[in-house]
């Protein structure tokens, strides 16, 4: 009779979440690229205000962090240190991100400056919010230390990672 307690839907729900997130970011990126087709010059000009070097460092930070999270799943007895390291890199990512946003703000760039920045702020801002959430999740699953939880947490973290790897070239490089 305990149907409600067994088989908690952690994994199913995480997959639903991941697909939903990918749909949202995918739609955002698709619209961004479509708008760029309509205004290639304006977009290229706006992009000059970005700091691709810092974003590159952030990419490396997140990929490394994803690797650490995977290690936490691989070696349960060392899960906590690996998770802590993954979360720490996440914090570093946010510090750099905050500097980047502050740099834009100092240039007087807002949502309304240009479509490019509308999407720059929306996409990377949403992503940064997910990094914050992801760090929280890593801390929680590190706390419970339950292998299934750690795996679910790592899944979320990989999704955050993946989204950045898609955002980075489209927003900063192309």
């Amino acid at each position, binding site marked *: 009779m305990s149907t409600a307690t067994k088989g908690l839907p952690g994994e199913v729900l995480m997959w*639903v979440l991941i697909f939903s997130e990918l749909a949202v970011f995918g739609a955002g990126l698709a619209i961004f690229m479509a708008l760029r087709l309509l205004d290639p010059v304006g977009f290229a000009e706006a992009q000059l205000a970005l700091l691709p070097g810092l974003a590159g460092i952030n990419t490396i930070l997140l990929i490394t962090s994803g690797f650490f999270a995977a290690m936490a799943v691989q070696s349960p007895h060392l899960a906590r240190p690996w998770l802590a390291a993954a979360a720490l890199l996440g914090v570093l990512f946010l510090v750099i991100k905050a500097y980047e946003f502050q740099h834009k703000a100092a240039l007087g760039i807002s949502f309304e400056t240009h479509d490019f920045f*509308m999407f720059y702020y929306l996409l990377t801002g949403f992503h940064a919010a997910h990094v914050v959430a992801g760090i929280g999740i890593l801390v929680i699953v590190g706390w419970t230390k339950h292998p299934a939880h750690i795996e679910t947490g790592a899944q979320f973290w990989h999704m955050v990672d993946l989204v950045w790897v898609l955002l980075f070239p489209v927003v900063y490089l192309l």
Partner: protein
Amino acid sequence: MKYETQKIALVYFVVAMALFAVQVLGGLLAGWIYVSPNTLSELLPFNIVRMLHTNSLIVWLLLGFMGAAYFILPEESEQEIHSPTLAYVQLAILVLGTLGVVVTYVFNLFEGNIFLGKEGREFLEQPMWVKIGIVVAALIFLYNVTMTSLKGRKTTITNILLLGLWGLALLFLFAFYNPANLSLDKQYWWYVVHLWVEGVWELIMASILAFLMLKLTGVDREVVEKWLYIIVATALFSGILGTGHHYYWIGTPPYWQWIGSIFSSLEVIPFFGMMAFAFVMVWKGRRDHPNKAALLWALGCATLAFFGAGVWGFLHTLHGVNYYTHGTQITAAHGHLAFFGAYVSLNLAIFSYAMPILRGRDPYNQVLNMASFWLMAGGMTFMTFVLTFAGTVQTHLQRVQGDYFMDVQDQIAVFYWMRFGAGVIVVLGALLFIYAILVPRREIITSGPDSTVAAE
């Protein structure tokens, strides 16, 4: 009926159906005023009729949900309702409040009085004292159902149902916040209106549908629960930020145009999920339940909700489209089919399922009930098409060509006549439904001894 206190639901359902009759008759009157504008213009002006139409809709839907909770909870948690007395007190408060709204508006009492007078925000028109009454009733209700659930077996269905009902009550609190700044006013207004129908009410809908599927098709509970989780997750994921589709033109920052467009487009998914769920359950189910009318309403609910909310919602949800269609008859077309498909049909499905059980009988008046389904569903669908045409013409003339609002209204008058005709059909269907539920007769669809696959 396994549990004595399920009887509470009977009274809720009867009151709900009485208000349902009032609601559709009010709609018909409003539709008549559209084509014959001087009707009752002194006694009962259009804005009051419209308010009665929409408010009685909301109130009877809520009474239906609450009745459904009182019916479902004992069965799911294997437990009598905590306090039947409180349940009746709660109903009395709600009925008193409803009468209060009607009297206050019809006679325009206490104009300007903050506590007693009209409030005038669509759907949230209730005077302050009625709002407080609603909150008190909601607290009683939540206390009652939560205690029942805590004492008994906790199932996914009851958990989600309670989550939806708690969310419903908490979000209503935003109705008390009424800032003078019109942009802010609208912003918070949608916290109630949108986050209700495209958020927490969807949880209620999914859980009641799940309960019906469990009973009517005999599919395993675990299968039902998997679906339920996925539907609920996608509903909340898309619906919360989907609120942005109301923040395009009210003075909120422009990023809402993109957030609203993207997230609200995803709102189609849970409605599609519910439709797929209902049909897959019936297809997989092995049970041939005698209550065919309830099954028809449940399937009709999932299907019409997908079209009304999902398809007709998506039609005008991208801000590039909504720029033209905002507040035209397209909105009214969507509003009608969405409310009817999702929440009216849901209630009529659970009434059809529960009433025979509550009265200790085999399913009765099945043919009449199913006929009423086709009348209402047909009438509503026709009304939706008519209003969609009207809205398309209106959008073109008014928003593209720039003609004056009233000139355009004259040109689309023919659609308003057809809407009235569709309304007559719907009202007939509604009255037939109420009759079929309240006046039991013997006739039932005979499933002969060897008809295990009758309706497949």
